[in-house]
């Protein structure tokens, strides 16, 4: 298993290199740069601006310097939590822990990309984990119940509910929740990320979509497993229905869910632009999308690389968990 993990980690190096290269050059090919503005500045000022950020050097030199900056130079994960940044909370210091310097932000002259990521990732992570909890807590039981009461009224209502969850987009669901729970009932703030209660509506909105997918996948997976011989054997031995479902069927029934969860978790914790905009959450998803509009080269590259690392890591985790859940699979 360790050989497997080690090999997969080695494979990520060329992937990240290609990604960094493609992002770097694609950004520079797009029309308009970080200093393109409606009110033009003089040629001298533009030259000075470019000199300040090193954009006056040949592109290949810029690329070389960037690659050198983002290459990990030390391994001290225990320093990860002690970086100073905009707020005084402990956070995510890539420079002290791994020597990774993602560069200065072009849009925010007094912030570095390391700082922005450290500042914004926690909110996205928190929202993602809460939404994931909602998704699992609702989706799995709903799927299990639907599978057990197959083709009954309960199954149909659970499946329709899941269908609605998949079909109604978050940008409709979110404002509807705000309209009802905060403007009509006054239970929550309309937007913001200041109090514990501010987490409820965004987590519910984002979680419900994933809950719907999970419910459908769980139902499908469970149905397949419940028809298998070992379940019939368990029934014949007189095991209770609860025991059959929880002990025997769920483990196999969740396999499709686990496959789905890898990329889903990466997507969910790396931040959702739509949810973060509706609820004005200071997350990385919003930062990522606006950085592309701002042509904030370093911030775009930095977030792209971070997302890539997250997706690769989570896919690896999913592969490991799948082998653990399904003894018929082997590491190879």
């Amino acid at each position, binding site marked *: 298993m360790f050989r497997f993990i080690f090999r997969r980690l080695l494979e990520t190096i060329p992937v990240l290199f290609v990604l960094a290269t493609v992002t770097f050059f694609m950004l520079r090919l797009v*029309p*308009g*740069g970080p200093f*393109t*503005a409606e*009110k*033009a*500045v003089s040629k*001298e*000022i533009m030259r*000075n*601006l470019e*000199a*300040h950020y090193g954009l006056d050097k040949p592109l290949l030199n810029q690329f070389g310097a960037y690659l050198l900056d983002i290459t990990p130079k030390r391994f001290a994960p225990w320093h990860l939590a002690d970086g100073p940044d*905009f707020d005084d909370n402990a956070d995510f210091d890539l420079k002290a822990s791994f020597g990774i310097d993602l560069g*200065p932000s072009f849009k*925010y*002259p*007094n*912030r570095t990309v390391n700082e*922005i990521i450290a500042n*914004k990732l926690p909110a996205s992570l928190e929202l993602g984990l*809460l939404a994931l*909890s*909602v998704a*699992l*807590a609702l989706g*799995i039981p709903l799927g299990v119940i639907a599978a057990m009461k197959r083709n009954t009224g309960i199954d149909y209502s659970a499946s329709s509910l899941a269908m609605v969850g998949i079909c109604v987009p978050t940008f409709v669901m979110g*404002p509807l929740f*705000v*309209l009802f729970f*905060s*403007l009509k009932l*006054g*239970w*929550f*703030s*309309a*937007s*913001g990320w*200041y*109090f514990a209660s*501010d*987490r*409820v509506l965004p*987590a519910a909105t984002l979680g419900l979509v994933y809950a719907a997918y999970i419910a459908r996948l769980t139902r499908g997976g469970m149905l397949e497993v419940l028809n298998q011989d070992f379940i019939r054997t368990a029934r014949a031995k007189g095991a209770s229905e609860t025991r059959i479902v*929880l002990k025997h069927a*769920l*483990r196999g029934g*969740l396999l499709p869910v686990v496959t789905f969860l890898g990329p889903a978790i990466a997507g969910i914790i790396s931040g959702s632009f739509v949810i973060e*905009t*509706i*609820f*004005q959450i*200071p997350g990385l998803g*919003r930062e990522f999308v*606006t950085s592309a*509009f*701002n*042509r904030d080269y370093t911030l775009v590259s930095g977030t792209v690389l971070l997302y890539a690392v997250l997706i690769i890591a989570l896919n690896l985790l999913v592969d490991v968990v799948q082998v653990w859940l399904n003894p018929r699979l082997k590491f190879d």
Partner: protein
Amino acid sequence: MRLSALLFVLLAGLSHLGCSRSVSPNTTAAKILNFGNGTEPEELDPHIVTGVTENNIITSLFEGLVNYHPSGEGVSPGVAETWETSPDGLSWTFHLRTTARWSNGEPLTASDFLRSYQRILTPTMAAKYAGNLFHVFGAEDFNTGKITDFSATGFSAPDPHTLVMRLNHPVPYLLDLVKHYSWFPVHLPTIEKFGPNDRKGNTWTRPGNLVSNGPFQLQSWLPNQKITVTRSPTFWNASAVKLDGIAFYAIDSVDAEERMFRSGQLDVTSSIPTSKISEYQENSPSLIRIDPYYGTYFFRLNVTRPPLNDPRVRRALALAINRDGIINTILRAGQTPAYNLTPAYAGFAPATTLKTDVTEARRLLAEAGFPEGKGLRRLEVLYNTSEAHKQIAEAIQQMWRTNLGVDISLRNEEWKVYLDSQQNLNFDICRSAWIGDYPNPETFLDLLISGGGNNNTGYANPAYDRLLADALATSDPTVRATLHQQMENLIVRDVPVIPLYFYKRVFLISPRVKNWVPNILDNRAWQHIDLAPPSGELKGRD
């Protein structure tokens, strides 16, 4: 089993969350104004930023030589108590008050201003607004590196409380200029504590570091959430400051902002979704405000491309637009139709204007060799991706098609791509807008100067350039006004741009907010704003 344990933990965590109740962020004991301030500020360094959201925060933290008048029009004394100008208008002397102090208690002197002007003009700062100071003798040469000795420029401080500026040409509206943050003083010793003073990337503007001289001081900065400022005890006029603090919320969604206003989280917003304007006007007229704003929405025409190189074609297009229709059906906030470029303000009124005259438009088009649009190639209208711009472009497309028989296609581009196309004249017709930087027609008329950085039409008229040069050289306001009118006459005659409407500032405001006076540039003197105690007014917002 392990899995169900995990589920249990997750459920327990969730139910815990559901129990915690929200505390209203509206602290009513202290008078804190909650203001929806648009996007996240790039910085709070007056010498680096360029935007409106930054302006709002910086004017609460810093104060320039003069301040905004409580009435919204004109100036009132700021750091300078009095000032005078020489008879030829080329030299200005400001007498600074001895009670002006920084928020760290140090006195504010004329040398702080000198060092600040030197900083913004230093080439390595690459300050985008350095050009604002170019009226002063030698400022431009210093900024472009032609001279390196700052004492050779027109800025001087004969004594700690006197500041003198020698100008290149008379600037009758200099007081309106020095209200802008690019002229504000910064505390150099603080900046130097956190890095070199002439480069970007300095962290002196962060909470705890920032030293300022205005009515408020920086308390906290939560990026993409809010910036809070509190009353400064060292401000020379501290007793006149009415609010205890202001929370500037960074909100980049108009819809979210409106919901926050409705839920009582905000007292004033920056904008309102267009779709909600009539709803508020009908049901809660006391909550919506429509103020004049010094901006013009117009189409740029690429005069280097046939057939738009023919002024008759350009004029025909300009005459065949029903501006009132656009305002009443799309914009819906009673904007003023624009038949010339510069808004009528600051002593300016256009002598001639365009009009809506379809018959004349058809005649001009026929005269240019395109009767009823025949033989005219398809023209393309470029706009940056936005629902409002799209609707306006579609309406005009329809008007030109029915009125003139001209075939129009539409092209939308993402903001920076659009700017790139516009600056490289890669368009036929391009949606544009201009918001004045200072209350004087020159902020608009400067646009169409030959080869100007913001011209973007290819229009080059030596007569026009000469008129602007003449206006800049004279200190006589009546002569200036006449020259401005002549410049506008040229724009209306040659039509390098098609003016469409003059902007209005449309926003939501709680009746609790007092002294929020209209200002054509949407700037405020924050020390005059007040907040009445809360009443049952919140209920009215449903």
